[in-house]
């Protein structure tokens, strides 16, 4: 029962990532793509937590922490590059 609900949740997350991927490929400007990148990585953090649940290992959550941190920093670097502040 629980696993079925979580499976459906995973499908929704995958659909969200796919929609963001569509915007990434289509997006007319680099800023749109950066936002799509942001959404994809935020959704991926949840996917990582879900994998950790199915594997039953708490240690996998460390990866989600570092993942979120580094994606944040990439976005900030891209933003500073766009506004000529790097």
């Amino acid at each position, binding site marked *: 029962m629980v696993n079925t609900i979580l499976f459906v949740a995973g499908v929704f997350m995958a659909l969200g990532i796919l929609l963001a991927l569509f915007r990434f490929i289509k997006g007319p400007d680099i800023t749109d793509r950066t936002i799509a990148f942001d959404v994809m990585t935020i959704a991926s953090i949840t996917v990582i937590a879900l994998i950790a649940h199915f594997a039953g290992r708490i*240690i*996998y959550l*460390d*990866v989600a*922490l*570092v993942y979120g*941190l*580094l994606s944040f*920093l990439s976005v*900030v*670097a891209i933003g*500073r590059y766009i*506004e*000529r*502040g*790097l």
Partner: protein
Amino acid sequence: MIKKGLLLILLVGFVAVISGLLINFTGSNELNPLASYYAEKGPTEVGAANLVTAVVITYRGFDTLGEVTILFIAAAIVGFFLKTMNADTNRPLRLRKTSEILETASTLLVPTIFMLGAYIFVNGHLTPGGGFQGGAVIATGVMMIILARPASQFNHKLISVLESISGIGFVVMGVLGLVLASGFLNNAFLPLGKLGSLLSAGAIPIIYVFIGIKVGSELTSILDSLKENQNEI
């Protein structure tokens, strides 16, 4: 045109070789003898709960030494290349100021990021991570400082001193392993402790602290040499 055709043939040959490999690949159902030796003997011989750490630091410690050396050489060459470049123009650069939000957020985030980096390399023998990842996270913290305050300067002497001390420390730990225990980078000259506690696995936490500081300072020096030159263009 001929060149393109030749390249295409090369690529097709590559694909053929790969597909041959792929068709016969079935995956494995059990560990091979070497890996099962590590899995069975690793926890008692090395005392590290994270077997990847046991392999990286102890069983294949020489590889890690070489890797650190390669990273050091790469950082040195990047610095050398960018520093000897003659400046094109001497126009002062006008950077746009950061927003206040990013600046305040960075004062909150930078200590937290450093704490996270320290957690990752101190707990390298218990949880995923270790010197390399922790060092990278620490370099990220430095990166955050640069991004939030582009005008800030680094203490180059501090970076190079940290790098040398941690490099020497790493080699000294290795030699101590050779003298006091059975081989180079053998960690068993300190008590192995209870599996799964912070003070276990002999010298591995100490070695990982050295590697973490070394990798962090090397990556910082790469980023720094990329930034440094910016004001000269």
